[in-house]
């Protein structure tokens, strides 16, 4: 009894184990290392089925912050990189990790906050001025603090405002060290201002009584780029399939798929891959 049970047990686990390992090998698929906003906003659920139908290629998305996505792709753990931090992307290509960088689409960042608006920035159009007011008033501000694309952008704006928020970290400046959605949850929970990409904010469901307080500044422009991981550095990269995906994203069809993604009557991403 004992032995039979054991044999059954090991057989079952061996089958499950092998089944698990083979899952990736059998089909036409690529891995995309991606920023979180494109995933959390539901964009991939909208465009990937269209690409799959046309090409037969399954796209597996690993959604992490831009910083981590670039790091993972640098370790060859992905075929395509889709993020939003142009300087870091250009470095990635210059160092030979990526083949070429293409503009894909854009949207913008917004600053959201509670109706109490302690810093008095609601209705403003200058991100830098708003940041100065937040720092002066000591109103709570929740930052990603995770080296993501959004965090890099936010740090650049603080620098422009002449404020070093890290000196006040733990006081009015709260670094969550997590993704956009998690940071929004924190911000809504503690009544702190948050800088978010517009797509994640619109699709976000736990808004509470928060609303957009600052938008429309050119400094809040948010450009997304797409890069094929360099097969010369990473022999495991499925360069053909990855390039097919990039070509499709940049084609009229792919750009139209991005354009047609609408949440609550609002377009979340604006394609500019042909420009």
């Amino acid at each position, binding site marked *: 009894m004992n032995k039979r049970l054991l044999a059954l047990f090991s057989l079952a686990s061996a089958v499950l184990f092998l089944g698990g390992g083979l899952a990736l090998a059998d089909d036409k698929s690529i891995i995309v290392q991606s920023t979180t906003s494109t995933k959390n906003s539901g964009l991939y659920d909208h465009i990937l089925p269209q690409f799959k139908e046309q090409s037969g290629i399954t796209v597996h998305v690993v959604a992490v912050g831009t910083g981590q996505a670039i790091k993972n792709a640098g370790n060859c753990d992905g075929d395509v990189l889709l993020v939003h931090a142009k300087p870091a992307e250009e470095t990635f290509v210059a160092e030979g990790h990526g083949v070429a960088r293409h503009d894909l689409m854009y949207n913008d960042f917004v600053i959201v906050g509670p109706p109490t608006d302690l810093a008095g920035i609601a209705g403003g159009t200058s991100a830098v001025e708003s940041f100065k007011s937040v720092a002066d008033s000591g109103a709570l501000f929740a930052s990603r603090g995770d080296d993501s694309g959004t965090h890099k952008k936010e740090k650049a704006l603080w620098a422009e405002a002449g404020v070093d928020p890290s000196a006040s970290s733990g006081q009015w400046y709260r670094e969550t060290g997590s993704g956009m959605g998690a940071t929004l949850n924190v911000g809504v929970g503690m009544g702190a201002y948050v800088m978010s990409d517009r797509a994640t904010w619109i699709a976000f*469901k736990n808004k509470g009584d928060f609303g957009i307080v600052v938008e429309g500044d050119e400094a809040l422009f948010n450009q997304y780029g797409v890069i094929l991981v360099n097969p010369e550095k990473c022999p495991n990269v499925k360069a053909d399939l990855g390039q097919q995906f990039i070509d499709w994203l940049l084609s009229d069809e792919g750009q139209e798929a991005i354009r047609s993604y609408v949440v609550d009557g609002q377009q979340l991403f604006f394609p500019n891959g042909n420009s």
Partner: protein
Amino acid sequence: MQDLGEAFSLAFGLVLAGDGDLMEIILLSLQVSLTAIAIAALLALPLGALLAVARFPGRGAILVLVNALMGLPPVVVGLVVYVFLSRAGPLGWMGLLYTPTAMIIAQVILVAPIIAALSRQVLEDLHGEYAEQFQSLCLRRHQIIGALLWDGRYSLLTVLLAGFGRAVAEVGAVIIVGGNIDHLTRVMTTAIALETSKGDLALALALGIVLLAIALTVNGLVMALRATAYRNAYA
């Protein structure tokens, strides 16, 4: 509180509708965690039994180590497994990162110390009761270990359930080595993390309720199995 009420109705709705995506996620959760438990049991039960029976120099240090490893943070295990399985890592050529296999490996590392440490305690107590009898029968060590494992099987089931609970509930390790990829490596806990980050707290809670229901079902099944076997053995 509003979210909680909504979550319960959502959870029932999801289960009753037999939502295909949800079923896929539940099945993968079970596949990964049950496989991890099976493998961890094969490795850790004999180790626990050996530690219960044998006396050798350094045993105390090993016991402390195994007990301490029960507290391994899942995210650290995830990172270590990532470093090994990444294409840039020593085992990268196997191409296991972002597969269910990688998740199983991480969970085996997480639960094996729990099974080893708890089974060691259970079997050592049992050994205390039987030691004289074993001596009089002049049993060899592997026979003693076999007898202890068999005799302690009902208590060891509870040990395995503790390991299963840890495996199926953790998110830190599987989200790093699995990547939370839709239709490939998404399990209950990573789905909950994703819905939380979308701000859909009601759906996240609903998935949590479903996960709890699964844990209850597994525990109930094991309990029933144990009761039946117990009756048959002593009837």
